[in-house]
């Protein structure tokens, strides 16, 4: 549905996005994850034909964002970082205006407006002037304006920013309900957001793609090995050298340790399980095994690793 190929954008000297490529299939929700200033907004503005790319191409539903901008604009709904609201209008009048400029006409118009208000939970506020709404409701109206013409593609720039936790959950539920009918790109700098709402993730940092895939595949890709945490009773140095000498162990770090016991973080080559042999050796050596468990790498670790390594490089 969306294909992005080596897309770049510079603002004068500042390179905001550089050589970004990714693809989004029909009906999926893509999370566009990156710290502030990573280039998320810039990329989305190019996809929505608001800004021309400095290099590369992007197509939405097969139409080029530069050459066939009108066709692209017919097919997208866009919620910018600050919702584009006319504060002096009522919710209904506003949605009516947006629907009309998006090309919804005649008999469908009222039906589309009602459906959209229903979906975003703002029907009971339809005659309220937008400036009188709370921030959460304004955000919903922003979402409604992106949905009102039932576009194939939805581009949502940080849709939950500045909302309170309850509102965030509500908005996420609405967005999740959109998958299937719509292809969604959602940007965020908050990690749990993508793992909760998205099927696919693109991590962007410093204007470049730093990782891409499903949450699981990202974890698998980036795992450097299996990680164990072992609490062992026995002289620290002795135990440490014993573990180091084991087959398959790449690295051992001491989390805490004294004369009589220690806690070790053990990394072994991917795909191996050293737990059984470790337990046997500990018992054979006359030490006490107090705790042994595998550590899962979280998306958080990956995000931090990707975005911090990129900065160092």
């Amino acid at each position, binding site marked *: 549905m969306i294909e992005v190929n080596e897309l770049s954008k510079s603002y004068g000297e500042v390179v905001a996005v550089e050589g970004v490529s990714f693809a989004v299939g029909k009906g999926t929700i893509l999370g566009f994850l990156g710290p502030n200033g990573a280039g998320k907004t810039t990329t989305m503005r190019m996809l929505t034909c608001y800004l021309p790319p*400095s290099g590369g191409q992007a197509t939405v539903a097969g139409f080029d964002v530069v050459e066939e901008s009108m066709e692209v604009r017919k097919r997208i709904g866009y919620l910018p970082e600050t919702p584009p609201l006319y504060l002096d209008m009522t919710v209904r009048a506003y949605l009516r205006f947006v629907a009309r400029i998006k090309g919804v006409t005649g008999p469908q118009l009222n039906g589309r407006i009602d459906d959209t208000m229903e979906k975003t939970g703002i029907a009971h506020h339809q005659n309220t002037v937008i400036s009188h709404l709370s921030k959460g409701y304004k955000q919903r109206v922003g979402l409604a304006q992106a949905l009102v013409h039932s576009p194939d593609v939805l581009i949502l720039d940080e849709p939950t920013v500045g909302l309170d936790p309850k509102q965030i959950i509500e908005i996420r539920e609405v967005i999740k309900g959109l998958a299937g009918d719509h292809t969604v790109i959602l940007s965020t700098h908050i990690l749990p957001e993508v793992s909760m709402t998205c099927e696919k993730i693109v991590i962007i940092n410093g204007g470049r793609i730093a990782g891409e895939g499903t949450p699981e595949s990202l974890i698998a890709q980036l795992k450097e090995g299996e990680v164990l945490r072992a609490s062992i009773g026995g002289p620290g140095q002795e135990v440490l050298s014993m573990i180091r000498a084991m087959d398959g162990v790449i690295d051992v770090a001491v989390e805490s340790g004294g004369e009589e016991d220690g806690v070790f973080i053990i990394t072994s080559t991917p795909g191996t399980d050293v737990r059984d042999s470790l337990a046997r050796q500990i018992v054979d050596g006359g030490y006490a095994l107090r705790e042994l468990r595998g550590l899962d790498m979280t998306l958080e670790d990956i995000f931090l690793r990707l975005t911090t390594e990129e900065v160092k490089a």
Partner: protein
Amino acid sequence: MGNFLAVYSKEMRSYFVSPVAYVIAGVFLFLSGYLFRSILMQFNMICLQLGQRAQQMGGGMPALNLNEMVVTQFFAVMDFIWLLIVPMLTMRLYAEEKKTGTIELLMTSPISSVQVLLGKFFACFSLYAIIVSLTMVYFLILEAYGSPDWGPIFSGYLGYLFLGATFISVGILASALTENQIVAVLLSFGILLMFWLIDWSASFAGPTAAKILQYVSFIEHLEDFQRGVIDSRDVVFYLSFTFFCLFLTTRVIESRRWRR
């Protein structure tokens, strides 16, 4: 067409839900009403003086032309008031959309920037036309007590429509150049005053320069209308000026899409 009407009605609604339109129309009608009254009283005094003199000296009362004494004078003061009013009607048209980010909605919707521009232009022009036509009331009052020649009055008003279109196009261009409404107002005042004063500087210039300067002056062309003359050269001047400014506005708005 549907898109144009959507923008047009949105802008009209926005003028009438905010107090701005009412305040501007109110202040304007008060000012012009006051001026009209002063001009009438002055005319009254002249009539009285002439009447007394005619009695003292004997002989008839000289014929006084209502159009020359009242209508022309009133037009002369109103010309300038439009220059003050129009920038306040146009200032928010683009500047506000840029400031609040709604321009992003317009630019990413399947609507051409020309449709947006025309919707805004005609909404502002309609409001202007409403305010202008309200001042016709003064001439109805005049009709009740005298018999002005309506020809020049109507053509004068026609001139105001052309003048207004030109002023509005300048104001819209200024509004498209900034996201600050105050800057937009000051910029339009600056441009409009410059073209206004050109007429004045023409009187110091050499003969050829004076001709050119007079051609681009706003008042020079208006005077024909107020004399009751509808000259195609005046119409062409105002319309081409308007088209030029509107064209520049679309360039300014579209320029975001070229800067790669």
